[in-house]
């Protein structure tokens, strides 16, 4: 078995009386795409918030490349190479597409307050390199022609693509994509699938939440189904999706169908 890059053990999170994530365990092997599906309110996005450190679990461990990351501030977790996107596209509306992209790059010397003044030359050179990289990635996502537009003027689908592109600027080791296909039109979605496959080939590990199941099936090496905050089923995508419990979960479980 390949090395696992992320392991979640018995994670729980409640909001008031509601158990959003309930004793959830899963593992993500390196260089794979892991899909996460489940009906509305199953706790998928909450799970992403927990992994990326935006909220703290009530119990359980989260181990990213061998290190326990529960309790670390979210920016530190991102700095370790675990980058997430958001369900509702969060482009930085009042910055240009290129600025959005360049922000994604990690460990920039120029981000230290005085460096742009005292290390002017080096920062300039660093900026040129980052800009080049940003343009390459924008080209990969067919967004290059929009590089100087304000992100706020993009369509929802384009914002989604920009978000993914921006995340790639960070050279992530694990990329958490929250509904990357939402709002993206079908033709573009097909191309996006190809691009995500290329990313896996280049060695990236990806975890995807998606409700458009055909896309998840086309991409995932392994599929987890979350229902009411707990893992309902997992394994090979085709097998998982044929599991009658999954269809039942989507259509609504009767009391008898509860395991």
């Amino acid at each position: 078995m390949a090395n696992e890059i992320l392991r979640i053990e018995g994670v729980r999170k409640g909001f008031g009386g509601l158990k959003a994530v309930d004793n959830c365990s899963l593992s993500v092997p390196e260089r794979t795409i892991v899909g996460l599906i489940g009906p509305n309110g199953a706790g998928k996005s909450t799970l992403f918030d927990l992994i990326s450190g935006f909220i703290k679990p009530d119990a359980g461990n989260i181990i990213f490349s061998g290190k326990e990351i529960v309790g670390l501030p979210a920016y530190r977790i991102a700095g370790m190479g675990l980058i997430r996107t958001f369900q509702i596209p969060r482009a930085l509306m009042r910055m240009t597409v290129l600025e959005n992209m360049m922000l994604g790059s990690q460990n920039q010397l120029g981000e230290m307050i005085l460096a742009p003044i005292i290390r002017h030359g080096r920062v300039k050179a660093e900026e040129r390199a980052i800009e080049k990289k940003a343009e390459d990635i924008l080209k990969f996502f067919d967004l290059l022609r929009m590089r100087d537009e304000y992100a706020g003027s993009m369509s929802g689908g384009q914002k989604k693509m920009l978000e993914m592109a921006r995340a790639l600027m960070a050279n992530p080791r694990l990329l958490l994509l929250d509904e990357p296909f939402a709002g993206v039109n079908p033709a573009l979605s097909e191309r996006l699938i190809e691009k995500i496959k290329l990313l896996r080939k280049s060695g990236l590990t990806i975890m995807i939440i998606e409700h458009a199941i055909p896309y998840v099936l086309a991409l995932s090496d392994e599929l987890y189904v979350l229902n009411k905050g707990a893992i309902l089923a997992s394994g090979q995508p085709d097998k998982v999706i044929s599991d009658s419990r999954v269809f039942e979960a989507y259509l609504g479980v009767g009391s008898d169908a509860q395991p």
Partner: protein
Amino acid sequence: MLSLESITAGYTDENIITDLSLRVEEGEIVTVIGPNGCGKSTLMKSIFGLTRMRGGRILFLGQEITGLRPDQLVKRGLSYVPQEKNVFAALTVRENLEIGAIALKGGIDERISLVLELFPALADRMDQRAGTLSGGEQKMLAVGRAMIINPSMLLLDEPSAALSPKIMGQLFSEIQEINERGVTILMVEQNARRALAISDRGYVMEMGKNRLEGPARSLLDNPEVCRLYLGRK
């Protein structure tokens, strides 16, 4: 009783619902199902004037209600239970019901006792803050709050969300009872099986559009439904 004529609506610039039509006859229970993110909740919000409508019109009892404010709709006898955050957590159960009756003139006590007849479990909790109730009790309070104006039609957004199967069953039978008292019901539901079991007719939505329509009991037998949900053949 309620008819949507090719409405198009969304929150910001993008349309979540496009060209959707739907009818509910008096006395019916109609359920709208569909996969995550197909626009079911947006549909409910659009009827209640909480989205930006960019096309089409909505008729209720023969009169156009497109673009009316929620308080005007409530006065016309249309009541809405949102999916979440549907009780005033910081207020007591009694206060929640009183707020629900704000559009009424007088007779509050009488209405409250009618709601308590429907949901007797709430009677012991009248002076408790709603936030301290269990999930099921909160849901009953939410429906009770909507019922207190004696509506002719009730809109329910995912009434079964986050309920245990047992409570869910109880809730659906209460919805049925409300319907038998003469209240027309339109609901959107995740739990298609349970909801359709008590419904007269159903609609299936996909990507902001109406895809299927039919009698509730036979709708799930349609192979299209499975495809729309899980994308398998």
